[in-house]
């Protein structure tokens, strides 16, 4: 008994007991002491942050100027710079080039037409890897044409084609600057943390105020959302270029600029391409959200049909986004893995077979399209629609399985969600701040403790404590379930290679789906509420738990396993005594990713009627209240940052204990 009660166990048990007691009896406590502040943060202590932020934005837009130009001019200039290439791509892909306005408009050249675009992507697929990839991306784009999504898809493609280069190049330059100047890096890191944890909804409003409703605002939001991983990957991959290669560059007499552009960047290109892939996927992830501030395209179709509760159309447009995501993801991954090849010899045509073929097809299509309109625009008569099928399927499921779903929902709600909710909601804010500080201090030292306590205090002082607790409860339950499902799946995938290929392949696909897509079937089956939100979050956040578990187990050194086998471990002992303990740091990293994804998804589930911080952010968006949105968004970000630091500190401690 005495040995079992280590100081660590006393600390954790004590902390939990106190929290539980306070949570259970906070109401009685408030009655007994007649101190209402115990359960509710007093209004008069609240920080007036919301108004100051809104006021600041107003000032920025109305009066701010930098001697030569006003802030307004600046945003207009940015908008113009974005608008021009975007419009060009729209003309190229959809509308064609015209001169003049209205009735006097004269078409100079038609748009590329679907045949030309499909041939283009096939060429890109083959260039990036092989015919299999070419067939895949070709089929994906063909799908868009056949299923009548072409027009919307091309609008989406145009904005992705603008956002990705800006995000990638911008990220590259920021990363290079941070690599070169340590002070800039120190400045940048917290900004990146915030950019990656503040929910997108929160900065939609300020962007809306600065840039107005429309594709440009959507592009700005997309770039802000998609850039941070590129910056991080750039910094990381520049640092991981072997020291010797850099020294070789210096000994060859490179100037600083030559070192960067002739040595470091080319050597790091494969990892940089991983960053570009990230930017593409995040840009697609933003498609639906960005359509809230005027992006149009597939995202708008999904959103509109969700609002109309038009299940079929929603799924159709959602699938189109998925198909496009898969095509772009696979193609860009192939580029990342693509190795240099020797150029074939010969004349211009022979050296660039694909460029010339594509050019020929485009020209032929341009000419033939005049006479055969079906080549230019995919004929409506030949489109297929799956909308009614999905609607019917959903209806059939709902008619036949309603009771089953309802029963599951009630059991989980009563047995898990509500008790946990009651526990978290009951914690008095003051103790919540102290407890978070104590947990962080115990795991990560006093600096982390102070930081965590301050961040929680910020949430309380903004009057968002109750909503934050709902966020934490929903996130906690979802992460728990995702981990309980995900880690065994990961173990299975690691132990059985055949199953692993299927499971990890499935997880890859899950990760390419834009977060919004998860909402559609969930809402259809379970309607709105905490339970639906939880299901959507679990689905979205499952992938990292599985992946990291599988990787962690596979990365256990062969020698350790052999040592285990030779010591006479059974398979079960091998797993529990050798592999899992060694994989804990990886498992914790997976947990960290799961939490981050859960929090980002949670904000989106505000659309299905949760009452957490996400809802606060979403309300701010509908009311265009920038201050409210940013404060709530920062609160979400702080929760995410505290969780991230705690789990990272745990993983770090574990790594040190294992001597890895």
């Amino acid at each position, binding site marked *: 008994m005495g040995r079992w009660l280590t100081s660590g166990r006393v600390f954790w048990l004590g902390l939990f007991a106190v929290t539980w007691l306070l949570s259970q009896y906070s109401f009685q406590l408030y009655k007994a002491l007649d101190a209402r502040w115990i359960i509710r943060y007093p209004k008069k202590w609240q920080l007036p942050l919301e108004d100051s932020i809104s006021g600041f934005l107003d000032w920025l837009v109305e009066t701010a100027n930098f001697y030569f130009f006003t802030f307004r001019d600046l945003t207009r200039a940015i908008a113009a710079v974005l608008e021009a290439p975007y419009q060009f791509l729209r003309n190229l892909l959809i509308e064609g080039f015209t001169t003049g306005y209205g009735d006097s408009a004269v078409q100079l050249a038609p748009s590329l037409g679907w045949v030309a675009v499909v041939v283009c992507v096939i060429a890109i697929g083959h260039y990036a890897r092989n015919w299999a990839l070419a067939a895949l991306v070709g089929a994906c784009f063909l799908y868009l044409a056949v299923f009548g999504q072409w027009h919307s898809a091309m609008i989406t493609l145009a904005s992705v084609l603008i956002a990705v280069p800006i995000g990638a190049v911008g990220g590259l330059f920021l990363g290079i600057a941070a690599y070169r100047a340590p002070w800039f890096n120190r400045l940048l890191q917290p900004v990146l943390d915030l950019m990656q944890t503040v929910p997108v909804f929160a900065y939609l409003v300020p962007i809306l105020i600065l840039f107005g409703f429309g594709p440009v605002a959507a592009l700005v939001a997309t770039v802000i959302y998609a850039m941070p991983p590129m910056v991080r990957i750039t910094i990381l991959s520049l640092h991981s270029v072997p020291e010797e290669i850099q020294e*070789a*560059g210096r000994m060859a007499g490179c100037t600083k600029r030559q070192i960067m552009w002739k040595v470091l960047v080319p050597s790091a*290109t494969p990892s940089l391409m991983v960053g570009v892939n990230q930017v593409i996927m995040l840009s697609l992830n933003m498609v639906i959200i960005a359509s809230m501030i005027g992006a149009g395209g597939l995202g708008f179709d999904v959103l509109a049909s969700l609002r109309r509760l038009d299940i079929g159309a929603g799924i159709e447009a959602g699938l189109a986004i998925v198909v496009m995501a898969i095509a772009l993801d696979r193609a860009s991954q192939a580029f990342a893995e693509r*190795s240099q090849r020797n150029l074939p010899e010969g004349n211009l045509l022979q050296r660039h077979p694909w460029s010339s073929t594509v050019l020929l097809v485009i020209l032929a299509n341009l000419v033939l399209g005049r006479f055969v309109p079906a080549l230019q625009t995919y004929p409506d008569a030949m489109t297929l629609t799956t909308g009614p099928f999905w609607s019917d399927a959903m209806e059939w499921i709902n008619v036949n399985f309603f009771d089953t779903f309802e029963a599951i929902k009630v059991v989980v709600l009563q047995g898990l969600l509500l008790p946990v909710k009651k526990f978290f909601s009951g914690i008095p804010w003051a103790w919540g701040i102290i407890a978070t500080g104590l947990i962080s201090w115990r795991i990560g030292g006093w600096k982390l403790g102070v930081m965590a306590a301050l961040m929680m205090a910020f949430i309380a002082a903004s009057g968002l404590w109750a909503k934050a607790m709902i966020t934490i409860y929903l996130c906690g339950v979802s992460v728990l379930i995702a981990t309980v499902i995900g880690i065994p799946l990961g173990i299975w995938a690691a132990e059985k290679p055949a199953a692993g290929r299927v499971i990890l392949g499935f997880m890859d696909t899950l990760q390419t789906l834009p977060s919004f897509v998860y909402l559609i079937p969930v809402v259809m089956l379970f309607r709105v509420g905490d339970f639906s939100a939880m299901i959507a979050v679990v689905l979205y956040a499952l992938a990292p738990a599985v992946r990291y578990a599988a990787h962690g187990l596979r990365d256990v050194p062969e020698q350790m396993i052999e040592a285990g086998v030779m010591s006479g471990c059974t398979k079960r002992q091998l797993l529990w005594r050798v592999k899992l303990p060694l994989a804990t740091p990886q498992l914790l990293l997976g947990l960290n990713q799961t939490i981050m994804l859960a929090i980002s998804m949670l904000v989106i589930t505000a659309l299905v009627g949760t009452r957490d911080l996400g809802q606060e952010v979403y309300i701010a968006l509908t009311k265009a209240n920038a201050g409210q949105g940013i404060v709530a968004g920062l609160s979400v970000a702080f929760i995410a940052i505290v969780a991230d630091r705690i789990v990272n500190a745990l993983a770090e401690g574990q790594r040190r204990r294992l001597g890895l």
Partner: protein
Amino acid sequence: MNQSVILECRDVWKLYGPNAETFLKNTPAPKKGDLGRAGLIGAVRAANVQIFKGEIFVIMGLSGSGKSTLVRCLSRLVEPTAGEIHFEGENLLNKTDKELIQIRRSKMGMVFQQFALLPHLTVLENAAFPLDVQGVPKAERLARAQEVVELVGLKGREGYYPRELSGGQQQRVGIARSLAVEPDLWFLDEPFSALDPLIRREMQDEFIRLQNMLHKTIIFITHDFDEAIRLADRIAVMKDGAIQQVAKPEELVLNPATDYVAEFTRHVNRAKVITAAALAEPLSGDSFSGTVPANATIETIGDRVEAAEHPFHVEQDGEVIGQITRSAVIDVLVGRR
């Protein structure tokens, strides 16, 4: 010997840790203990080396002995904490970045342990890289690169990428690249350590062949004593950042300056190092079986002397300086001496 000094380092220090420079200013000749107390690591301590034109100078030591740091101080890839480095009579540490780039572009070449080839360039482009950054026109630099690629025996593989080559071939590219600018001073940082023993041997032969053609001044780093004695004109042995002894291989074996050097050289095959001159004794009779050159190692003459009936003359510059007997050779061969 009358040779001119091309590179000389005087009292060079490289300390890692907080406030290394101020510490060194306040404590001019710190002992190892002083450094530890100040929280500093002495990667290079009070290094004094002279390198003569045309020699192969080997810096040798175990990993962590500071040999890599010292060579990086000599090429100023690493900024020394204190000391002077004179290259062709001028202090390298006073050079501006611009001047340094010029020196590296025309007078220095370096080969790296892990090859450090640029993965996105072909063999030919890698070899041409130092010329590329100088802005040499494409045709000209590729022609020169072709020459060095052929020199290292990679003709026919110009269009390959580094990952398509074996380790030995990759290092040949590394050597070609370092020779492209015809450097006066050639640094080789453990160039063969990452290679398999058989390939290493082959590359050492290749290196000797190249040096016999090119006669460069070479600073060669290795942790392999056999490699050192095989290639070196002179060897500097390093331990814990300090140079223990600088001497010819034979001297190192016969007169080690410290216990550490003695320990290091104990297991060396002496027949490979000791020359006839070292065993020469005054002439004692009239009958001789033949003559051996004074600088021949016992390994090369052992068989002949041992099989013959009478001692051999040891000859230097056409003059007999003594005799070498059968028993002296056997002493060396069986390790008595």
